[in-house]
């Protein structure tokens, strides 16, 4: 690793730590109140931890998908992975609430079934996408399939929300999860998301070397000794785990996996073994920062996190598409 890259990674780590620390100082509660300062800080720390985990998982997922598909325009939200996870989570909530009492042992709480549903949804989305990719390598086809899957899952989710209106409690639970955000995150969310996110980030970093070889295409990687189907299988599984954890914690937060890797590449390069740890830190800090913006925004209710990331990510995506078209035209 070269010195400038090491320096960049250190800067990313320090800035991320400062952002998280600063986020503890922002909020409606008065930290001057000695009686409540502990409670305020605890709530904010849980919220910051949840936002950080969600961002880290999504940013790492973005790096891996961009490498796997050899396409800088993809991320878990653009490919429909987060929408798939979101639909899976909605179905899990509905199934849990509607299941007969005997099928719900006392130790089973909604926070436990949510990640399982999210994981199933994320996996389904990625498997469909890979099946399409076997038919065509076209960048446009991959993006269109992602958009199509995203629309399909969001429509199915909207249908589910409308069907759930029959029960006030159920509708409230599904709508609250669908809107996303880490406003209600507590220590239970963090404890649930922490092992899943850490496992996904570490596992994907372990696959960084073969992923780097995949940048040369599947044929060249195969001739260099990479077991391409194995790499594809395990990285897709771990991206699905990370995305499921992120969605279970913070809902459908879009574009993090697009914004963060693009912001980092000029400083740490494209090699996944360097970009992945930087993306985990910067992705976490970015969503914490977005959550601070949510808290500071002068709105009556709290904005969903995805609104802020969408406002930043949407225009960036457009810029990247236009740049990609220009480069393609130039040859």
């Amino acid at each position, binding site marked *: 690793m070269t010195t400038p890259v090491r320096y960049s990674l250190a800067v990313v780590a320090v800035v991320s730590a400062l952002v998280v620390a600063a986020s503890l100082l922002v909020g409606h509660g008065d930290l001057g109140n000695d009686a409540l300062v502990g409670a305020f800080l605890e709530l904010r720390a849980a919220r910051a931890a949840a936002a950080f985990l969600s961002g880290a998982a999504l940013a790492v997922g973005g790096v891996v998908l961009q490498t796997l598909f050899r396409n800088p325009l993809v991320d878990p939200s653009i490919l429909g992975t987060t929408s798939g996870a979101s639909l899976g989570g909605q179905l899990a909530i509905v199934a849990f609430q509607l299941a007969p009492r005997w099928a719900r042992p006392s130790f089973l709480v909604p926070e436990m079934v949510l990640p399982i549903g999210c994981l199933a949804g994320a996996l389904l989305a990625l498997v469909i996408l890979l099946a399409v990719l076997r038919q065509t390598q076209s960048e446009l086809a991959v993006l269109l399939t992602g958009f199509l899957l995203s629309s399909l899952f969001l429509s199915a989710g909207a249908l589910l929300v409308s069907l759930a209106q029959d029960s006030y409690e159920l509708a409230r639970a599904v709508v609250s999860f669908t809107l996303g955000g880490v406003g209600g995150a507590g220590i239970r969310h963090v404890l649930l998301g922490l092992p899943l996110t850490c496992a996904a980030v570490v596992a994907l970093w372990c696959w960084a070397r073969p992923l780097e070889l995949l940048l040369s295409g599947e044929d*060249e990687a195969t001739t*260099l*000794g*990479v077991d391409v189907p194995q790499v594809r299988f395990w990285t897709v599984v771990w991206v699905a785990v990370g995305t499921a954890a992120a969605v279970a914690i913070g809902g459908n937060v879009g574009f993090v996996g697009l914004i963060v890797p693009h912001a980092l590449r000029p400083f740490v390069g494209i090699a996944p073994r360097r970009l992945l740890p930087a993306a985990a830190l910067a992705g976490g800090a970015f969503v914490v920062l977005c959550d601070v913006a949510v808290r500071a925004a002068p709105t009556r209710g709290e904005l969903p996190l995805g609104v802020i990331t969408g406002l930043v990510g949407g225009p960036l995506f457009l810029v990247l598409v236009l740049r990609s078209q220009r480069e393609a035209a130039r040859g």
Partner: protein
Amino acid sequence: MADALDVQSVSVRFGAREAVADVSFTAPHGGVTAILGPNGAGKTTLLRAVIGLAPYAGTIAVDGLDVRRLDRRERARRIGYVPQQSRLDAPLSAFEVVAQGRYAHHDGFGRLDAGDRDAITDALRRADAVAFASRSFVELSHGQRKRVLIARALATGARLILFDEPTASLDIGHVLAFFRLARELAATGRAVVIVLHDLDEALRFSDTAVLLRAGRVAACGAAASVIAPGPVREVYGVELVPSDALGFREAP
């Protein structure tokens, strides 16, 4: 000592079409073997079968070992492959691209050690690519990229190096430099197999040649006997004429 590459009765089918049919030849250590033939004769398909990218019937052995029995890493350590063009369009440095050649030398997830770095540096030096090792691969000229890909194949440590049309779109200086390197590799005991279009280059720089027509071997043996009036007329439908056209060699 077994031949570096031993291809026996190899056929490759794409659906009903037989792209390579019952091809047999050997490539010895210390020699340069040219695979020749018109467009669509099956040259690249044959190469893809050897490197495990096309399913085939028949037997392909490297150093006497059936390649079907080699795992991916073992095969990568024994066969170095230089594609006509890399699909790499990401800004990895030339050093990082060459380092990809060391992946097969490690179990698990392939971290580089000091031995790998030495092998990479040596490969860069042999391929005359040290000067641009730290530059981004995508910013290099076509000839420089080719040298980086050759260095990557050398970094694998393989004793059999396959080149797919290495001189396509290279200027005359780089063409001569490439063949000098190919001869140097052969002189170190490696086997060099090159898919070529240019019969003159094949005649000047290869020891043996395999001439394919419609997926079958039309002629095989010493380069001078394969690139001769009879086989050339039969395969290409053209007359081979001695010429006093300009020739080139590297400046001293």
